[in-house]
Each structure stands twice: as structure tokens, then as C-alpha cells.
């Protein structure tokens, strides 16, 4: 995916295109509002939600603050249970390891459980280059793969496609990947799901290698957990002879007991269910049941850089539930592709620039892909303060400062193209320190308001291209206060008269 995303336009350009796509907007609005309402009801069933949320955040923080300890513990437990553990510092190394492991089996095809980590590293593309075909088996991922498309939502990657588009993709593409779609396929979801079942069952019954991610890894027991709905996960995790799981190092939790928190938080936040239809846990290998060989590839790929930022670190608590996407007014209008990464929406706006660094134009634009309304923080089951991290990253983009890249501390220069914003911030800071000048400037603005252009000139144009410039009031607030409330101070400190503004 990283390869595919390199040519992606920066967020504002991409969003300008997608916001004009009325079908996309209709699909997204329907989907996000449906999940959002259901989720609110599912969460309301648990009157200790706030305590669960705090505990989820605390367990993740505990793990992150001692991640080296817990990863060593995890490795020890997985090895003791018969698994093998590999460590990958970046996407390239992870892809190299997985390619080698598949080659050692002698197989040229693998079945995959939907996994954000393998999308992040572009595993399918890397395997294709090595002559290995990877079949996505989650229904939505299948739609995306057959349509030669990109996922646009963490949980429902084909959320941007409606049923008739899906039928067309199935009829056109299934044949070249395996069993063709039945003739006369309608666009009813049940028929489409049946077509996917028949198409994929052939793969499941013959596949010798499965590739997955994991939702959680338990350090004390070496247990991996995959949470899913369709059963494609169970197929990939239990039928092949070899299982390779590629998992971000932040998915670790210390103890078996900790799962009691996350198995309550995740399904309700994600699909708004009391529990997802299927959860599979495995600890190394089990004689006669499931894969004979199990490899765990622990993936860094920017996570340790994120860990080094004491404000941004909290993004690593994310359990990929996607609740933040479904409440975000910006995501709802722009769609997932505009974020140029497998991680769209508010979490993507803080995760992608941290995992990849903010030097690129897309990455530098993502912290601005938000109205800072705070809805994402409200719904986050592990209480990631996304607005706080967004503001922090904006500061890094504009002002530069210390960051860690590929494990090395460095000082980032202010990003080019933000000179106007920097100048404006400095001017504002100066003006607020000089009340006389501020008062004079506001009065001047009021009196010349008819002369103001609708669009800003120069570097400000990019800003005003997509926004209405605020109208300047006929009278400044200070002047209005003075006229209507006499000499009373605007902060209400005089305490007299018609009530201070507090």
C-alpha cells in the first residue's frame, strides 16, 4: 500500500475531488450514520463503559511504557508454544521475511485474512513481485482486490461501493481469479455474498499457507487473537499448514485477563454488536489442530518513532475499531481514499504522519484534515485525544522541532509552504500582546469591509479556495461593547449593571 499511496495527492486536492462525487457521499453518509446510531445503542447497554474505556487506555499505556519488556515476554511465550518469531524494523524487511517464509513452503498462492498491517507494508504487491498470488478473503477486501481499488474504511473497506457496483465487479473480474460469478447474478447482498462464498471456498479448501494480522497478542501466554464476522478468518487461521501473522508491535497486551476489557470495547465500538460472530485465539501450534507451523512477524515500521513522541504516543493505543471514522464530518465528506493511506479518518490523520514522518506533502496536510470538533475523542474506546495530537502535529509541520525518524532523533525544519501561516500566527501573537494595535486594526477592518476581496491573494488563496471568508462585522466587538455597556470592562470585572459576561 505504501507504494500505491506514494503518488497520492495531498489531502486537500484529493478531498476536493471526492467531495464532488455525489454517489460516494451518499454511500458514505448512509453507512456512517447507520453504524454510528447502532454503536451508540450498543455502548449504552454497558453502564460501566467509562470505566472500561479508562482501563483499556491504561492497559495500553502500561504496555507502551514497557514495550521492550512485554515484547520479549511475548516472544518467549510464542516460542515456548511452538511458534517462531521474526522482527521487522520496516516494511521492506517485513515483506522480505514473509516472502522468504512463503517460498520455503514451495507454495505460490496464499489466502489472507483482512489485515491493516499487511496493507500498510504493501505485502500483496511485494508477494506479487516474487511471483506469489495473495487472495484476500474478507468480502469487502475481495471487492477491493477484484476492483483493483483501494480500501476506504478500516472496518468496511468497500464502504464506497454500492451493490450494483459490486455486482459489476464480481461479474467482470471473478473469472480471472478463480471460480467465476454465477450467471444472472443480481445485486441483492445475499446473492453477492453467496457468490463470494463459492468463489472463495475453493481457495480455502486448497490453500497451504495463510497470512493474517492480529487484534491482540497476549505477552504472558503468547496467545494471538483475531476478531471477525464472516468465518474467512477462521478458515485462514485453521485450515492451512503454515500460518504467518504480521502484527504491529503495539498490539501487545500484558495478560490474559486484559482481554476481558478489549473483548468488550472492540465489538461494540466497531460493528456495534455485543460480540462479533467469530473470535479465534491460538497459542503457538496445537498438535493435530490447525497449522503445523506458525510464524509471528513483529512489525515496527514507524511505530517506535511514534512511541518516541510523548504526545503522539497515545495513537499506538488504537485498536482499529473505526468508530472515529463514522462520527467524523470530514471523513464523511472526503471519503477514505483522500487520506492516502490504509488508515483513513481521524486516526489516520494522526497515525499516518507519525508512522511515515511529516516531511511529505500528504503527511504534512493530514493534521489539517480535521475540524477539531472532538467527536473522534468522544467515541474512542481507548480515549485517544486525537485533537490534541492533531494540534501537536500541526505545530511540528509549521514550526518544526524534535522528531524521531527511523530510530534517530533529529530536528525537523519548518515545512515549506506554511510561511504564510507561520507569519499569521506570529502577527496574531504580536497583536494580542499589543491591545492598542489590535483595537485599531479591528476598527480599520470594519470600516473597510466593503473593499475586502472574497478570495485571499497570494499564498492565502489555497485556504480561501475551499472556504468562505468570514464576513467582517460592521462594528468590532470592543466598539460594540463600549457603545452598549458603557465603560464596563469586557471581562465583566466591574460586576455591575446588566450582568458580566462570564
Amino acid at each position: 500500500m505504501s507504494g500505491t499511496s506514494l503518488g497520492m495527492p495531498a489531502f486537500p486536492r484529493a478531498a476536493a475531488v471526492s467531495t464532488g462525487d455525489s454517489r460516494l457521499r451518499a454511500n458514505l453518509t448512509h453507512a456512517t450514520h447507520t453504524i454510528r446510531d447502532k454503536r451508540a445503542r450498543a455502548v449504552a447497554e454497558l453502564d460501566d463503559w467509562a470505566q472500561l474505556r479508562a482501563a483499556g487506555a491504561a492497559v495500553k499505556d502500561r504496555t507502551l511504557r514497557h514495550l521492550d519488556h512485554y515484547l520479549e515476554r511475548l516472544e518467549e511465550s510464542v516460542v515456548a508454544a511452538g511458534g517462531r518469531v521474526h522482527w521487522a524494523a520496516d516494511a521492506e524487511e517485513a515483506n522480505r521475511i514473509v516472502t522468504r517464509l512463503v517460498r520455503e513452503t514451495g507454495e505460490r498462492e496464499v489466502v489472507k485474512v483482512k489485515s491493516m498491517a499487511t496493507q500498510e507494508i504493501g505485502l500483496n504487491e511485494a508477494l506479487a513481485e516474487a511471483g506469489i498470488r495473495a487472495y484476500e478473503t474478507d468480502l469487502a477486501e475481495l471487492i477491493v482486490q477484484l476492483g483493483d481499488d483501494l480500501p476506504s474504511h478500516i472496518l468496511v473497506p468497500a464502504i464506497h461501493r454500492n451493490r450494483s457496483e459490486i455486482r459489476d465487479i464480481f461479474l467482470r473480474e471473478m473469472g480471472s481469479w478463480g471460480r467465476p460469478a454465477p450467471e444472472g447474478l443480481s445485486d441483492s447482498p445475499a446473492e453477492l455474498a453467496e457468490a463470494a462464498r463459492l468463489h472463495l471456498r475453493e481457495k480455502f479448501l486448497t490453500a497451504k499457507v495463510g497470512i493474517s494480522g492480529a487484534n491482540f497478542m497476549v505477552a504472558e501466554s503468547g496467545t494471538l487473537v483475531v476478531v471477525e464476522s464472516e468465518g474467512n478468518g477462521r478458515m485462514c487461521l485453521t485450515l492451512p499448514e503454515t500460518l504467518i501473522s504480521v502484527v504491529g508491535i503495539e498490539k501487545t497486551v500484558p495478560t490474559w485477563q486484559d482481554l476481558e476489557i478489549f473483548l468488550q470495547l472492540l465489538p461494540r465500538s466497531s460493528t456495534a454488536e455485543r460480540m462479533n460472530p467469530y473470535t479465534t485465539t491460538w497459542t503457538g501450534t496445537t498438535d493435530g489442530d490447525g497449522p503445523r507451523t506458525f510464524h509471528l512477524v513483529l512489525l515496527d515500521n514507524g511505530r517506535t518513532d511514534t512511541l518516541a513522541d510523548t504526545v503522539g504516543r497515545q495513537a499506538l493505543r488504537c485498536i482499529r475499531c473505526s468508530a472515529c471514522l463514522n462520527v467524523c464530518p470530514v471523513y464523511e465528506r472526503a471519503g477514505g481514499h483522500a487520506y492516502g493511506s490504509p488508515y483513513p479518518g481521524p486516526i489516520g490523520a494522526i497515525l499516518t504522519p507519525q508512522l511515515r514522518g511529516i516531511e511529505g506533502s500528504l503527511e504534512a496536510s493530514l493534521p489539517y484534515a480535521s475540524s477539531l470538533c472532538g467527536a473522534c475523542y468522544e467515541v474512542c474506546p481507548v480515549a485517544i485525544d486525537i485533537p490534541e495530537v492533531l494540534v501537536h502535529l500541526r505545530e511540528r509541520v509549521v514550526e518544526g522541532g524534535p522528531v524521531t525518524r527511523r530510530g534517530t532523533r533529529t530536528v525537523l525544519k519548518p515545512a515549506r509552504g506554511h510561511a504564510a501561516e507561520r507569519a499569521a500566527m506570529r502577527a496574531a501573537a504580536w497583536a494580542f500582546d499589543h491591545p492598542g494595535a489590535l483595537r485599531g486594526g479591528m476598527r480599520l477592518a470594519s470600516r473597510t469591509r466593503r473593499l475586502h476581496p472574497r478570495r485571499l491573494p497570494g499564498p492565502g488563496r489555497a485556504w480561501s479556495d475551499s472556504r468562505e471568508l468570514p464576513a467582517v462585522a460592521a462594528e468590532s466587538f470592543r466598539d460594540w461593547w463600549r457603545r452598549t455597556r458603557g465603560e464596563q470592562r469586557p471581562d465583566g470585572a466591574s460586576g455591575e449593571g446588566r450582568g458580566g459576561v462570564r
Partner: protein
Amino acid sequence: MSGRDVVLARIRRALADVPRGEGPSDPPVARDYLRVHGSRTAGQDVELLAENLADYRAIVHRSGPDGLPALIGRLLAERGARSVVVPPGLDPGWLAAAEVTRVPDLAPSTARELDAVDSVVTGCALAIAETGTLVLDAGPDQGRRRITLVPDHHICVVRVPGQVVGSVPEALPRLAPDRPLTWISGPSATSDIELDRVEGVHGPRTLEVVLLAAG
């Protein structure tokens, strides 16, 4: 340096702000969330389990020990099942009234062979009332994970009230992490197409649960 050394060294540098004396389990975790939501008797837990299973479109039946063989026989006949996978430790009496070919759960049998079998009958490790979840731990009366996955029809027998717990926090201490677990909450389902829920994509399309009361 190996990938392992690189990643661990990066983590240690990244965590320079963590005080040296702080131990791995020192950062506090308040576990003031509820062990169980609401107070219910064992009987009420069974009722809630039945309600939540049905809500996620599992078909729920009730039986005593005497009626169980006839019930299972009838359920298999109604489905037109001609063959059924049987875990090694399943009480043979449960299938006494079933006129079907019994397929033993054997390690060498292939997934394709399983695909030709109509149904599977198992017990379970436990069931969770609040979430409507069955948990299988590959015990002798449940068999390998794949036998409850590939056939299209699963009949799962839950001994009530003994195997029913109230909540997720009550379930985990009763389960062994070193056993492979399968948690099942209703039949396989997808909502990937315009969020319309469709049952049965890859797992069994029909899940029938028998709540077996003690005799």
C-alpha cells in the same frame, strides 16, 4: 544488528522519558469496571443467553437429557442431513436417534472431505449470557476447530446452568489460553454490502443451540 536488536534498541531510546525505577506493571490500571452487568440468578443468565443467541439469529432449543436424542435426530432430519461429524468425546447417546452417517473427527481427513459433510454436533466449553456467545476450546466433545467451521450446519449443546457464565470477565478465568479457542456469537455474517446483514458467508449458515437442562 538483527531486526530484533534494532527494534528493541529503538524502543528503549523512545522510552527515555520513563523513569528508571518504574516496573512493567507499575503504571496503574484501575479495574473498577463491572465483573457482570446487573444481578441475575443462574436461571436468568440462561434466559438472557437464549435471548441474545436468538437476537443474533441462532436457533435456540431446550431439552432435558431424556428428550435430547430425539431432538437432535429431528433437527438433523429437518435439515435433510445425511452425514454428521462427531467429535471423539461426544456422548454417543446424543446421536442415538439420528439416522445419519457418522463421520469421525480425524486429523488426516482433509478440508475437502469435511466440506462434503452436512452437519456437526458438539458440546462447548462455556457460554456467555450477556453477549450470546458460545466458546469452544477443542475439548473432546468439541473436536478440532475446523469441524465446526466447514460443514454448513452446527448443532451446539450447552449444559445449563452449569456451563453458562454471566459476562466476558467471568468467562476468561475459566478458559485456558494454551488451548485453541473459538468464540461463536450467532452464525457467520457480513455487513460489507451497504451494511445489510447477510448470514452465512464462510462459516456455518445455520447455528442451532440446544440448552440442555440437568435431569
